């Protein structure tokens, strides 16, 4: 089943969906396994698994460090793909890969799509690949039925959003603010205007990420967005309290 349909079905049952994020190999694949188990068991609807890259230019300090530590511990792309396949096989929610374009490019774009599709991965989030640079990427996404998740930013004009929406599949990832991952966002009037603009520009589901950290944040998003994305927060949580803290945290979000 396609990512979009999968999420729409879930969305019909819940007033807001939850997507979480992990960095593969950080602190270890074993920990990843445990964290994902707890996430799934506590009702997460979708998980983006970041394949670490040495130059994560769009990530803030927490995820940046996780990328570096994972690589320093010896994480290979192949390890990530094997692990991704295992998760997609094991759990019934959609899994996505989040990474930077060089990982895919270097692997071989078509090989990467074929492999991910075979492994049951439903979509890719590539923050440094605007559609202008992704002609072959988008063609392959169609061919292999892996959703290219495009990103809206508060700086995107409405016209630009329409353009992006034309290329996007699965859902649209709306960055809640300027900047990199990890910092708290403000959900004031500007934010509402922005989400309204997003909504007008596309009929795809809207996920909102960057700085979503608590039940309160998610409460605010209800009715405005379809999916809330928890990123750095769970990484920090695992860092400070271990994988077992993830379940209760997720359970308390909705």
């Amino acid at each position: 089943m396609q990512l979009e349909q999968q999420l729409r079905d879930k969305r019909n049952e819940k007033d807001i969906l939850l997507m979480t994020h992990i960095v593969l190999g950080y602190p270890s694949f074993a920990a990843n396994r445990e964290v994902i188990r707890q996430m799934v068991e506590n009702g997460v609807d979708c998980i983006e698994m970041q394949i670490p890259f040495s130059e994560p230019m769009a990530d803030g300090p927490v995820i940046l460090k996780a990328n570096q530590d994972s690589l320093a511990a010896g994480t290979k792309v192949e390890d990530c793909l094997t692990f991704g396949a295992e998760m997609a096989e094991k759990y019934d929610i959609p899994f996505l890969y989040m990474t930077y374009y060089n990982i895919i490019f270097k692997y071989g774009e078509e090989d990467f799509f074929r492999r991910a599709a075979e492994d049951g991965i439903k979509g890719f989030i590539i923050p440094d690949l605007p559609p202008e640079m992704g002609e072959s990427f988008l063609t392959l996404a169609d061919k292999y039925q892996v959703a290219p998740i495009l990103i809206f930013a508060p700086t995107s004009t409405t016209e630009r959003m329409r353009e992006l929406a034309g290329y996007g599949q699965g859902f649209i990832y709306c960055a809640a603010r300027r900047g990199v991952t990890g910092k708290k966002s403000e959900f004031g009037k500007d934010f509402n205007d922005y989400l309204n603009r997003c909504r007008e520009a596309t009929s795809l589901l809207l996920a909102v990420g960057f700085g979503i950290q608590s039940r309160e944040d998610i409460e605010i998003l209800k009715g405005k967005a379809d999916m809330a994305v928890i990123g750095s927060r769970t990484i920090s949580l695992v860092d400070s309290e271990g994988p077992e803290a993830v379940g209760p945290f997720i359970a308390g979000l909705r």
Partner: protein
Amino acid sequence: MDKKGFFGNWGGAYIPEVLYQTFQELQKEYDRCRQDPAFWEEYLNLMSTYSCRPTPLTHAENLSNYFGGAQIYIKREDLNHTGAHKANNVMGQGLLVKRMGKKRVIAETGAGQHGMATATMAAKFGLECTIYMGEEDVLRQRPNVFWMEKMGATVIPVKDGSRTLKDAINEAFRDWVTNVDDTHYVFGTACGPAPFPEMVSWFQSIIGIEAAEQIIKYHGKMPAKIYACVGGGSNAMGIFKRFLDEKDVELIGVEAGGHGIDSGSHAIRLNCPDASPGVAQGYKTMFLQDEDGQMKHTHSVAAGLDYVGVSPILSDLWEKKQVRFESATDNEVMQALDLTMKKEGIIPALESSHAFAGAFREVGKLSPDDAIIINQSGRGDKDIFTIAHAFADPSWKKFIIDRGKEYSSK
């Protein structure tokens, strides 16, 4: 550059969506400037009154006689204000920033030269300024940090990754996506997302335009060969651009050979098995990366060449065989520097000394009727801590030890 920012297979603009609008505006402003002859006039005027353009072309008679080959001419970018070609790019972007009405600039820096130049431009244009610099480079280039701060800039040591230039670039991008509305990122070399490679090369092309006039005036004809060191590629593009269509002029880029091409400790991105096509830092080029696409650590005695990527324009010219690429090891570079100081009383920057080393290897084979031009991208006296260290000068060490003790005891 094609409409998407590519040069052949290389380049592009692999940028986060949040920067999309900014790049649109930048591209538009840049296009306007290129079409407006008054802009280039203003640029020339600034460079001739604030910096020292045209910079001289020096006939290095002693070196020429020493090697007994072609006449060696040195293009003196070291005489620019702030001591390197970096000023050309930065002042040009400063004029752009003024037009765009932004109030703040940020920049990455490796050798510190680009940071110095940017801090200088910011002081002159009254802009707020933040400089990102790898922690290792902060240590290598402390004097530059001192001056940047004195000129009012904030210098942020970057402690991630290899703590050198590429990490400073990542961090600058993180700042930019956060403060995109009022901030311009003054990219320091002919790399990064389009339009930077072309724009930086355009500003730097003043080097080659002047050099062409000068060599005709002094030597009566075009040079046989032109040598430039290649970090990101801006000084090389700057001097090469004007000569790309001159069929009889061979262009040679010299990369940082570090401890040698087989050592795994170098910064050779072209003609080197350790490098392959990749996409990072916003553009596609030849990167020093592993089979997974993770960037490798690089090494050069010259902080300004210590970088994983290279200008996409140069990758294109390399692929099309319009520029030949060589490399020089740290040792060869120190020797070339030594010889140049002794023979000509000129102190090239460690970066620039790569171009000298590359040229010295070959110049003896040419005829005395021929000329070559070496682009001296910067001056070496900024590198005193590195150079005195590399030459293991005992009285320098003693001096530093004594000063250190004096400071410790207070």
